[in-house]
């Protein structure tokens, strides 16, 4: 099967291939994600209960607390961070978190084109993400 290629802007370099976890809602890492295990804990979030560990985490943008950068750093140190972060619009809080946690990150991607359960190959150096549409692999981590 031919992958779909999406081109965005490099934020933090790196390469990975993993399952996509996609949200239509912004994420606040402080208060929104449990730093102990990477589970989404914000009530009413469309990913409530899902785990971001080892996923290619796609969401529109960050919001809320500026401590969110440190939460990403903690997650990385506990091996609970996402493999990569894909945003529509990057904000400084998530960007700085990805920089100090060394999580590959791309923004300016139309994330609607990605579905939870797709296999995503991220080449952050080139700002490219390749998507393989997988059937039946949805929300494997919930």
């Amino acid at each position, binding site marked *: 099967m031919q992958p779909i290629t999406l081109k965005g*802007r490099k*934020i933090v370099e790196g390469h990975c291939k993993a399952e996509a976890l996609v949200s239509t809602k*912004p994420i*606040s890492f*402080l*208060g*929104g994600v449990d*730093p102990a295990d990477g589970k989404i*804990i*914000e*009530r*009413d979030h469309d990913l409530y209960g899902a785990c971001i560990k080892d996923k290619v985490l796609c969401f*529109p*943008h*960050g*919001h*809320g*607390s*500026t*401590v*969110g*950068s*440190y*939460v990403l*750093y*903690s997650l*990385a*140190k*506990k091996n609970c961070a996402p493999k990569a972060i894909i945003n529509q*619009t*990057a*904000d*400084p*809080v*998530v*960007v*700085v*978190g990805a*920089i*100090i946690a060394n999580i590959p990150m791309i923004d300016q991607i139309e994330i609607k084109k990605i579905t939870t359960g797709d296999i995503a190959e991220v080449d952050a150096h080139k700002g490219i993400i390749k998507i393989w549409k997988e059937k039946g692999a949805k929300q494997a981590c919930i």
Partner: protein
Amino acid sequence: MHLTKEEERIYDGEFCWANQVCMKILVRLGELFKAKKLIPISSSHVSGVSYKTLGDAPTEFLEALAKANAKVKVKSTLNPQSLDCNFLCKRLPSDLYEKQMNVLNCFEKMGFTSSLTCTPYYLEKPKKDVHLAWAESSAVVYANSVLGAWTNREGGPSALAAAIIGKTPDYGMHQAENRQPKVLVKLEKPLLDDVEFGALGIFLGKILKDEIPIIQGLEKASKDNLKQLGAALATAGMTNMFYHKLPRIKTEKIEKISVQTSDLKRTIEKLTTTSTKTPDLIFVGCPHCSLNEIRQIAKLIGSRKIRKETEFWVCTSRHIKEKAIKHVKKIERNGGHVLTDTCAVVTWTEKLGIKTIMTNSAKTAHYVPTLNKAQTILAPLKECIKKACEG
């Protein structure tokens, strides 16, 4: 991005490791957001001071910077920590106190002022049009919107990096063209109380993303109410600024949004998560109280006593507590607790057996279910105090 010779030397590691790490954070941010240069800042304010929200790994990052002799270049203040040294530290396990003091020592070693407040502008008001590197999203919105200073919403580590370097990349809110309003917000009815200001912030934050609104009908709003609005706006979105007075621009062509009273009512109802009417804790002071708010609280309590069944916390900075000492004494005589250096959200209320928190802050109501594992009741200040005194 253009770097001066000295900046390049820092970037290349000719000075200490800490300076190099900080410079790299700033340069990467700057390049990403197309800054042409670094600009000097008047002050920095960092978030990520509470050990509860930081945890161990970021603490190690701070320890490494402090050990490598990082020193602040400009006036740099700190957000609240996870406990105070008079009231909460006696009720929480001593190892948490020690871990918090370790975090604080790292910051003090780097030359930070132990302001321990989310309202650094009450300690020293930034001048209009100065450039700042502030984290603490509520203070960012207040600085841009009410004080007329210029700051991006820094992440905790980038505000820290800016403090050590004394500069910030020149992008975003530091450039006049990015401070232009994009949306005109009309209110169906004037806002009634503090909770409606907060609810408007949450409602707008969710729909605006990062667009700057002009909000009509706020000409007579108090600074305390604008503080509530800004804190909630930053909680729910990426917006760093709002206009509360009509700027001198043509508004015919910009997008218009009208906010109905029912939108605010729904937002307030959603932020209350329980039907119980008996909170374990009533908390005001998110963001930290101003002198005027403490005066108002003392006045509202009047001669009544706080009921023994509930705790009543008023959180503020040491600076304001000292200035408001007459009112503080009255609140404390009547059974309330005026805490400094911390707040309910960044301490371990669950370890004190607190399961329901009543507050007048929409920001607190948003965070309490996850950060405090408690239910929330959002109600105006007057109702919070009535509940504290009369049940």
